[in-house]
């Protein structure tokens, strides 16, 4: 089973992500912020990372940079899932190493289609 790391400081959002991805047959590891996400990513290499941008402490962009600096995360797909949709922040996400940008709120069907496209 493919495993996805879902990083978001909102408990309800993590619950919705977990519900949607598990229903599509994926395993889900939840993390409450960038630092927690980084620790969990170190404990187990996951198949895809889905992260929010605005979180207390380590934000999404910092998490992506930290993950991309790790050997086992250089080619793992990373998606940003955020309320922000400005071109500048998207460009920063892309430069940091994100593979895609999803604007909240997400639709479970469209989300799982994108995930399936990236990791099968």
């Amino acid at each position: 089973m493919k495993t996805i790391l879902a990083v978001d400081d909102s408990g309800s959002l993590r619950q919705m992500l977990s519900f949607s991805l598990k229903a599509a047959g994926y395993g889900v590891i939840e993390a409450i912020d960038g630092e927690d996400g980084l620790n969990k990513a170190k404990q187990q290499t996951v198949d895809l990372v889905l992260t929010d941008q605005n979180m207390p402490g380590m934000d999404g962009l910092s998490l992506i940079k930290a993950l991309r600096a790790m050997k086992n995360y250089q080619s793992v797909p990373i998606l940003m899932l955020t309320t922000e949709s400005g071109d500048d922040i998207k460009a920063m996400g892309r430069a940091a190493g994100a593979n895609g940008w999803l604007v909240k709120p997400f639709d479970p069907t469209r989300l799982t289609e994108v995930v399936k496209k990236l990791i099968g």
Partner: protein
Amino acid sequence: MLSRESPSDLMETQVMRLLSGVSTHGDQHLAEVERDLVQMDVLLNEAIKKLCTSFMAIHHAIDLQQETLKSMLSTGEPAPEQAARLEMLREEIGQHVGAAVTGLQFQDMTSQLIGRMVQHLAGLRDVFGELGTNGAADLPESGSEEMLVMLNRISDRVGARCSELAGAVRSTVNQRHMESGDIELF
């Protein structure tokens, strides 16, 4: 250039600068709070509408599913059209649950808006706090020069507080509806 102005002119300038600073910064914070409240109202209305529609649709689809199952049980053997109907209802329920999942994300967005409003209100409190800390209690006993220095210092600190806050507040939530957002793969 300043020395050409009389002490009372200088005092007037400094008081005007301070009042104008407090008014501008106070107005900025309140305008942001007002904007976020309107945005939150829009999102909550959209979310509740979406959740009500999904809830009613799920309820209706489950009713139909139950009727089909009852009919299947009474005949003993499922007819192909009954099996097809059940499959169709399963898909329909899945779609409505998906729409409800999208609607339920209002909590995340409204919580971000509330966080911004709290930061702006704290900023406003800081501005007034600066006036209180450096205001009446510390008024120089005499001499317009000391008064000018004090007014100048308060204006600078009010400005500095607002600049600090501008960098710390999260960017706002611009979504005007609870439909799913754009997806872009790089």
